[in-house]
């Protein structure tokens, strides 16, 4: 009890967002809700009039909605994948990050699916995919794998959340009934911990192939057609890399935001940003490698219908977006993250991440639209200019996402309290034992004494 009181004091700051809510929060929520309401109006307009209110046309049948779909699903790789990989590799610096990342995943998946529903001509018939499924269709693979991913991510978010809910149940005056139900009778016993750890570890292993499959099948929606610059074998891995890339950037931004707003500087330290920054750098280089491979192959092959699309991206209508994307995804991250000094700062990684998100959104746009607007039969080529409805819905989705995220932080601790404590109490020992096991048997005795 005493121990827990002392620890409560230590981690009070983690519980404060749940205990107190300032007026600034309500103002913020109000703005987000206003944006969301505007989005609803846009959506109702679209429902009433049909998709003619968008900028879509023949042959650009897919535009912003599908771009956003791919983008949001891409970001979903953030949480679960990163948290799972970091857990499995016993990276100790993951502890303050995992929950923030997992929440991103669970929430953003809804918006990804939401984008597809927005795009449908007849959303009222969406359940037809269950009534008359065509399993040869990559869209149906999407439906399947995203459903599984959503389920798995939810479970994977929920499992490590249980001990924290128990803490809230025991220490929070309000909403006790809510926490009691969700805590599933957690007592913190050894046995429960063991079961929990096995469950989490199992999910961590399962979630990785599921996550990889999700963005692979999303990429296959494009790659399984025969359209120029879509029908490419590289799409599967390319999209996964891009997803992880934009996912990590999303985590960094989210982390920086909660750190600032909830004063979590002692938990989210520059070293965390530095490490994530390193990962971001690696992904940037990997992304660059894939992109270069894709474009060089296309260019070298010089097939006419492919070259029309290629040139429209590199020097034609889409050139400004293309080169912005390259700068945003490679040049700026390399500059900021290649340099240890800037990488180790919060602002350095955040700026790089924002740049990456912009660049990656542009990359999704540049995958979807140019191939459609320059089809194989040149007579049909056309421009695409998104309308206010599409932009409004994008804005409202982002607003809604932030809103739900903020609500989550008000209901549950955004940093996993019990894992922080676990780290404090046990990890130092575990890690030193682990390092010991790598080295030869001569170990300085000083370290050995700590084990008692």
């Amino acid at each position, binding site marked *: 009890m005493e121990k827990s009181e002392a620890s409560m004091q230590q981690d009070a700051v983690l519980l404060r967002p749940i205990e107190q809510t300032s007026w600034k929060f309500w103002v913020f929520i109000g703005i987000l809700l206003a944006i969301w309401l505007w989005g609803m109006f846009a959506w109702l307009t679209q*429902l*009433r009039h049909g998709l003619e209110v968008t900028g879509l046309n023949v042959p650009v049948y897919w535009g912003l909605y599908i771009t956003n779909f791919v983008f949001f699903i891409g970001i979903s790789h953030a949480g679960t994948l990163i948290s799972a990989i970091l857990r499995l590799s016993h990276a100790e610096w993951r502890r303050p990050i995992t929950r923030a990342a997992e929440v991103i995943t669970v929430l953003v998946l809804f918006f990804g699916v939401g984008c597809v529903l927005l795009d449908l001509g*007849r959303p*009222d*018939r*969406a*359940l037809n995919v*269950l*009534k008359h499924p065509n399993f040869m269709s990559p869209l149906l693979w999407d439906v399947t794998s995203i459903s599984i991913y959503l389920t798995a991510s939810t479970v994977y978010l929920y499992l490590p959340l249980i001990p924290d809910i128990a803490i809230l149940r025991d220490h929070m005056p309000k909403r006790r009934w809510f926490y009691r139900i969700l805590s*599933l*009778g957690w007592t913190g016993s050894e046995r429960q911990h063991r*079961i929990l750890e096995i469950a989490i570890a199992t999910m961590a292993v399962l979630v990785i192939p599921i996550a990889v499959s999700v963005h692979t099948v999303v990429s296959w929606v494009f790659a399984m057609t025969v359209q120029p610059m879509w029908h490419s074998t590289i799409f599967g891995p390319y999209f996964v890399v891009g997803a992880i890339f934009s996912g990590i950037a999303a985590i960094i931004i989210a982390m920086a935001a909660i750190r600032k707003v909830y004063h979590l500087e002692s938990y989210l330290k520059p070293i965390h940003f530095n490490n994530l920054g390193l990962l971001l750098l690696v992904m940037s280089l990997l992304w660059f490698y894939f992109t270069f491979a894709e474009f060089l192959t296309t260019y070298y092959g010089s097939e006419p219908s492919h070259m*029309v699309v290629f*040139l*429209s991206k590199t020097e*034609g*209508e889409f050139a400004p977006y293309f080169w912005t994307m390259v700068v945003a995804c490679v040049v700026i991250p390399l500059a900021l993250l290649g340099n240890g000094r800037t990488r180790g700062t919060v602002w350095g990684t955040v700026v790089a991440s924002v740049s990456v998100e912009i660049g990656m959104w542009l990359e999704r746009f540049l995958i979807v639209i140019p191939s459609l*607007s*320059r089809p194989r039969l*040149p*007579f049909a*080529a*056309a*421009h695409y200019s998104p309308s206010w409805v599409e932009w409004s819905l994008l804005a409202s989705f982002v607003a809604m996402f932030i809103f739900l995220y903020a609500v989550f932080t008000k209901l549950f601790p955004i940093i996993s309290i019990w894992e922080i404590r676990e780290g404090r109490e046990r990890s130092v020992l575990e890690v030193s034992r682990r390092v010991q096991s790598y080295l030869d048997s001569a170990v300085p005795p000083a370290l050995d004494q700590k084990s008692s």
Partner: protein
Amino acid sequence: MKLNRRRFLGFTVGATAGTALGVPVSQTLSDLVASMDPPVYPPRGPEDSVLSVCRLCPGGCGVRARRVGGRIVKLEGNPLHPVNGGRLCPKGQAALQSLYHPDRVPGPLRRTGPRGLLESFEPSSWEQALNEIGERLKLLREQERPESLIMMRGDARGTSSRLAERFMKAFGSPNDVLLHRGDEAASQALYLGQGVRTMPAYDLQSAEYVLCLGGALLEAWSSPVHTMRAYGEFRQGRPGRRGKLVHVEPRLSITAAAADEWIAVRPGTEGILGLGVAGVLIAENLYDREFGGQRTLGLDDFRDREGNFREGLRTVLARDYSLEGVSAETGVPINTILRIAREFAASRSPLAVGPRKGPLVSGSLFDHLVVQWLNALVGNIDRPGGVLVAEDVPLPPWPELPSDPVADAGRMRSRFDGVNGEEPPHHSYPERLADVLLAEYPYPVEVLMVLESDPAFLCATPERFARALENIPLVVSFASLPDDTALLADWILPEAHFLEAWELDTTPPGVPFPLASLATPAVETPLHDVRPVAQVFLDLAQRIGGTVASSFPWPDLQTLIRSDVEGLYRARRGALMGTAFDEAWVQMMERAGWWAPGYRSVDELWRGMEETGGWWDPFYDHENWRRVIQTPSARHEFRTDILQALTAETVARPMNTEDNENTEGPVDHSLALVLFEPLPIAGGRGAELPFLQGILDPGHEEGWETWAEIHPETARILGLSDRDFVRVESADGSIVARARVTSRVVPDVVAVPMGLGRRGGGRWARGTGANPLRLLSPARDPLGGPPVTGATRVRLTLVAGAEARPLPEGRV
């Protein structure tokens, strides 16, 4: 553990419940969404088909209307009809939209407000209309001023039109103005060569080498479907033989794209190229010497009846149209001219056609003469694959008009526009009519009736025309859609749609055999309170009474047509329309001098015509010289005197000669204006139907607008980009059009389509595009031919604030 299982069970139950609930909810939603769609009721009832004749162009295609429960749901070609053989052009297919057009005039409209606005009209009744107009006309007769009634009509063939003509005669007015329909120059060329007054018919399907001098052979040609059918046969219809088409034009038109060779000449020089070819034919002795020697006059120099020396074609060509000169003027290499001429002569069945692009851009007399001469040079007159002349349809003459001093006196007066009614061309042009009306000389006009035409739109000076109409106390329009002229009228008496009325249509221009198509009303009660124009004239005649009334002994249109059919029966030739087998049978019989008609009474003929679509005579008696050559010399004449009179007026000079004279200040980059008529809006009709607006130019269906095609070099010099809005300005007017930078035209030319730019015509036509007629100078062929379109020069300037967003790369 227990709780985990409970949790899992709870989750499963919840999910199942959710799905079970979701399915009917989604179904309800679907129904809700579907209910937001307006109910549309398909027709129910017995199905049959009715035969009619399409009137959206002068082509005269037989139409079979599919009727379900009293509603017409589709039009197809009448398979037995010799003109179109079961096929229809896009206008014919879209004609259904004109029947059910939302902006049709629902009944007689009377103007109560200022002229020119649709809102100025109030619905009225036929009774009132006929009373008022009848009174007015009666008054004119009483005042012995019947000549103050003028009629402008755009058609010469239909029953309504013939009745209108008779009405004018019976009434006593000489002012029966037949508006320019695009056939005049071709008929004139045929007349000058062969002495017969009709449109030449080209036997395309039997030809083997066609040299087309700028004509829109595969577009708004005289009878489009008939020509296209012939073209199909010409290409791939004869085993082992494929016709070759060489097209000469400064623009890569649809006909040029279908051709085997596109010879891009400088604008206005198609005829000159033809003369170059003629020169080679003569110089290298490649012409048909038998025909040339025995059946032509004017090939070589000769002395005419008065003893005057007249230059022959040989002399004129050798002197004025040398190969070098022709090549320099047209921009075509000498070798090409030589090659084409030799190929042309060597072909088993060469045929020259051109330069008509459509009813509004009908080509200069110069070019038509050249075409006629080329055919004559290769002996292609009245032979299979050549220039044919259709016989007249043996319709009975209508009863003689009763003698009436008022009418006789009126008819003797000179026409208000000064055109001599006997000598062709006795047709006139809206610009000229506007001038004359404004001058009010030699006598003021009291009543104007306009039918089958929209002169206010088809006018190079529409504002003047509108002003001219203001001087006329009573203007009556018979338009069924409120077109530009109707908006200026005092009364709109909407005519019935061709599917709503009886009609006996005769031979369309360009078809070499006489025919009479019977159109039965497919819609038994017209959709609106409309009447066929013929009926209106019959009623008006009765209102006026006296000799006018007795000039029209028929109570209604059907009776009138029936009496015409009686005359057909009495002619004892021809047969009902039928299959190819029937055609061959009749031809064989008639060649042997027999007549085996398949009907034995007027009733049988009538019923047969209702069932098959009409009557025709498929037998063509080739080389019946007395019929087809009726010149004073009884020979085909090469009228080089006419040619020389025309030369100076009609050819567009290349840029260099004129512009170097005004080189002070900025250089005048004037371009030659080339006009063309896309088939869907040819003749100024079609823009009111949205399906036709969508097909104006293949590959550019986004543009319901007038565009201006310029060559990339020209665009570069002028600093214009694709899709810019440009002002096209001539000495006489200007329009705004969308620039299209394309290699489909030669440099220094701007090509603009005709047919858009109407103020009236319903919601889809109104305000769409601009009318390039405004750009034309009023200059005409000295023989009163059409407004010369080849000699106009224009300047292009960028309109400020243009949206310049080029179409994506790869778009043509």
